[in-house]
């Protein structure tokens, strides 16, 4: 190997011409390189050996918004790149960085002042159909008056034509609220935020008075996003509205707030179908906000946003934020906003909306890094191939393609395998997760375990969760309800007996059920039972890809390991 080639190998990063970055994980300088590029490149996948990042307009604007200079980005690339950085990448990077900050909005009395500092961009925006409508009364050659209510729509429209707006108009302070962390939790355990949670909060508030306290924090399931949200409230000392994905998550937020902060029960309210308490910290759901009696009626609960002078609005699982909530969020841009999520990838491709209306990404950390540091459990993913009996195979062969999936997914032979897995982990709290209720009920019956579905009342769920958490109930059979925000801190084994059509999001959520740190070896097991030689196997491939892209090793076995 020549000296130049040997020198190149001392660097872990490979910069491709299409703006993607490949980072060698086992390289001694991996961590340094990761820390250098993560602020301006989006982690797209993190399989074993090589992580992929992408420099995108949003990732660059996120970085520029956080104050990272072009020189710092270029230096990071040059310093760690194994081969010369392609010129087109540097050119594109420069172009993207230069776009940011060219358009700013500032407070101007009750209204806003829009400044476009580049005459070419000004001409472009003024001639655009979507963007031209925001130019109000001119204040100078490049400054224009904009109504306060246009703040969100303007940012949304400009980013759609490729120009981010640097929002320097600040936020309203909100109603004061005195609160602090408890030194000990309600259960008597010592408590403090973990280093990465502190870092996430530091980043969130780093922009200061004008730019800080709006944005998104990305953390894996089980890494304590709720605590980051509560941490933001503690730092601000202001009232907060928390929006979550469901009633179970509402309960979880409230329980955490009461357990970890000095807030009392009369300071925390639930705004749901059953209870409509509006307190200094109020927790509600997206479904509640988007409820309307008829398709063309108004959203009757939208005024929750205005019922108090909220100091912060927290969007839990922001990747699931429904379109109408984007709409109302566009109208409340003067409020501080915090988005929490495990992934910024939206199935509907509305990442731009999140950037424009919630704010830029402030913190992100790969799952595997968290796992190595012990903040989340180490998970082993195993796919077990379950043969079909002769009868089932015959039935399968004669069925239509659609029916075939159902038959394969509900393969009765899976029941024996579930039992074998339970025997392999005799003491581990275990979730049996599936899609088909009939299958789940049969399993629950044979295992003598309770089954939990969407129809299970909240009261019953709470009882089951409590029993599970306290170890009185070792096995829970759960349907799709397991996909979102249920708090089962001690689940160490998950057995997936059937799934929907290979949804990556579903897989992330299901895996998230077992990722909370475990006592002892901090090990969790994620089994997927797949009928051999069937469409079930093909569907499992999608789920498998998701897990491997997250860095999990994935084994396909014909029998349980000893």
């Amino acid at each position, binding site marked *: 190997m020549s000296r130049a080639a040997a020198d190149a190998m001392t660097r872990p990063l490979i910069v491709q011409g299409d703006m993607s970055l490949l980072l060698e994980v086992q390289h001694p300088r991996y961590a340094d390189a990761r820390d250098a590029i993560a602020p301006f490149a989006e982690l797209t996948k993190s*399989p*074993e*050996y090589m992580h992929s990042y992408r420099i995108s307009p949003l990732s660059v604007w996120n970085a520029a918004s956080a104050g990272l200079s072009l020189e710092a980005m270029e230096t990071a690339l040059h310093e760690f790149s194994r081969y010369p950085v392609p010129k087109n990448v540097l050119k594109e990077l420069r172009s993207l960085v230069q776009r940011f900050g060219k358009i700013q909005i500032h407070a101007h009395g009750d209204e806003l002042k829009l400044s476009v500092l580049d005459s070419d961009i000004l001409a472009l925006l003024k001639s655009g159909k979507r963007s031209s409508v925001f130019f109000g009364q001119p204040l100078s050659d490049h400054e224009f008056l904009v109504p306060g209510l246009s703040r969100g729509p303007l940012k949304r429209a400009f980013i759609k034509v490729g120009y981010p707006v640097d929002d320097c108009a600040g936020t309203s302070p909100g109603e004061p609220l005195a609160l602090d962390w408890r030194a000990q939790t309600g259960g008597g355990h010592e408590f403090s935020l973990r280093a990465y949670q502190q870092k996430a909060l530091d980043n969130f508030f780093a922009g200061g008075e004008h730019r800080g306290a709006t944005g998104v924090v990305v953390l894996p399931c089980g890494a304590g996003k709720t605590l980051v949200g509560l941490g933001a409230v503690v730092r601000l000392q202001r009232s907060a509205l928390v929006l979550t994905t469901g009633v179970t998550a509402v309960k979880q937020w409230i329980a955490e707030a009461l357990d970890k902060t000095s807030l009392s029960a009369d300071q925390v309210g639930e705004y749901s179908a059953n209870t409509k308490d509006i307190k200094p910290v109020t927790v509600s759901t997206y479904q509640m906000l988007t409820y309307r009696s008829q398709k063309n009626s108004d959203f009757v609960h939208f005024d929750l946003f205005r019922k108090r002078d909220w100091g912060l609005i927290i969007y839990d699982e922001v990747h699931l934020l429904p379109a109408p909530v984007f709409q109302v969020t566009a109208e409340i841009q003067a409020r501080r906003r915090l988005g929490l999520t495990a992934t910024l990838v939206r199935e509907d491709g509305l990442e731009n909306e999140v950037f424009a209306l919630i704010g830029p990404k402030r913190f992100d950390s790969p799952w595997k890094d968290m796992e190595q540091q012990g903040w989340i459990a180490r998970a082993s993913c195993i796919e077990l191939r379950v043969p079909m009996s002769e009868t089932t195979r015959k039935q399968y062969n004669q069925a239509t393609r659609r029916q075939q999936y159902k038959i394969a997914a509900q393969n009765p032979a899976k029941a024996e395998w579930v039992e074998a897995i339970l025997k392999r982990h005799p003491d581990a709290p275990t979730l049996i997760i599936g899609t088909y209720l009939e299958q789940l009920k049969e399993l629950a019956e044979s295992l003598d375990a309770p089954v939990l579905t969407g129809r299970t009342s909240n009261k019953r769920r709470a009882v089951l969760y409590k029993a599970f958490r306290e170890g009185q109930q070792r096995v829970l059979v759960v349907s799709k309800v397991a996909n979102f925000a249920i708090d089962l801190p001690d689940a160490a084994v998950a057995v997936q007996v059937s799934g929907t059509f290979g949804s990556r999001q579903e897989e992330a959520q299901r895996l998230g059920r077992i990722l909370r740190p475990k006592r002892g070896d901090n090990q969790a097991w994620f089994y997927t039972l797949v009928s051999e030689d069937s469409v079930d196997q093909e569907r499992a491939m999608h789920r*498998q*890809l998701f897990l491997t892209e997250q860095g999990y090793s*994935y084994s*396909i076995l014909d029998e349980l390991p000893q």
Partner: protein
Amino acid sequence: MSSALTVTDVQDALKHYAFSLLKRMSLRWPKTEVHALRQREQLIPYLTGRILSQADQQAQLDKLDGNALRLLKLACSEPAYELEALSTEARALGVCDFDGALRRLILRGLILAHWQPGDKRLDADRALEHNSRVLTAALGADLRWPDVSGHVLELEAVTGPVNDIHISDPCLIPRSLRALVKVVTRSPLSLTQKGFLTQASSEKLARELNLESQPLSVSLLFEFCYALKLLKPVEQRLQADQAALLWRRSLWDVLPHCLHIRLQMSAWPDDLRTEIEPVFPGGRSGFKEPGAADYLDLRIVLEALLRRLPQAGVERETWWSLESFIEQALKLDSALLMRVHRNIRCTNTPSLRGCHSGRDRALQRAAVAGFVVHSLFALGLVDWAVCGQERCPELDRQAYLQAVTAREWPDRSVVFRLTELGGALLFGRPLPSESRAGGLIVGPDFEILAETQQLSVNQVDFVSHFSRAIPGHANDPVRRFRIDKESVLEALSMGGDLDFWCAELEAWMGRRLPNNVARALKDWAKAAG
């Protein structure tokens, strides 16, 4: 795919090509030399046949007639192997095709002779290597390129900063060929009545082969396809030639042949040119009509010049000024640019005949530059780059040379360097060893990352045999491939061997394949029966 099969396929392919040339060549032989023709007609298949059998080498060589033996010895003799002399000799015999085929044969032996022990490809071609040694002994001469140190030319090495580096991809042509054959195998392409590709076919090809982001033209690919007998026009449809079956089975071995065909394209017989002429999108308006000796001379002179790059300084990292290369070309053959001149057309200069203006000279230079920066680049023999900021306005023109468009030149100095493959082909330098693990990753996400600068040509191309290339930039240091069911089934249907792939990948990775990938490959192979 087993090693034994690979050997057979390569030899068959070589023989196939040699036969084809000889057959065509024979049509133009004078009646008075019928006797000699018979013997010569046998020469190349005879040689290749003997190489296959590993027996009776000397006896077979003894049967060669005087002319053929003289030519063969001239090609192999020390110290002054002169391409020009050889070609003159060949032309005197009226068999420039013979020259081309012979050189290809020898060159292949040369590459093999320089491979390192332990080189994986060596196993596949051990028989050929062995026989090239026997051949050498029989001729009493070393089979390697002559020492040209006495003719060293002073090219200007560039030491200043080099910007905008374009790194060649030696697998580009074989990979694109494979893709083209796959496209045509799935669905034959429509031709117009005159034999041109229809607009829809052209668009389909450009789309499926992702040609927009490649320094390639459909025309260039078709040249190879025809030369290798991969495709043939049948009743207004272009379809895969049945004779290509063997090739398709081991198409990743096609690379050396591609290189030589391209370098020796000038030696193609007229009737082959006529046959392939129509199948070009929009015709071959940029070509001078075939048959001109000038056309051949350009190639020979430039190749000869390339082989005279200063031996001592030809390091992988040394950049050479293209301008100085052109100057040296002029010194070597003052009529060179006139020959180039007569072989190009320019869209805004319909006729250049007899012109000597500065503008025409610039066009001629652009054509020579095009040879280096497009033809040799597409073949993987050179990388090129632009250096500094000074203008080179004379390159900023549009010209055509052998189906390669030399245009949109940057307004800065162009420099080039030899790749390892270029070094191997032009100087007989060893190709990088393939035994070292590293540079290749098969991820559990079914993606293969191949670091082109750490892997050999064949390794990277091997990967693309059973996977799908993920579109990227031609200069990317890592080529990405995705293994999926369809790509694996396709490769299996072409005679691939799953165990062989897995063993090779694991050897190059230095670790086991991820469990889920190995299992999926087996599942797919099982599904394929």
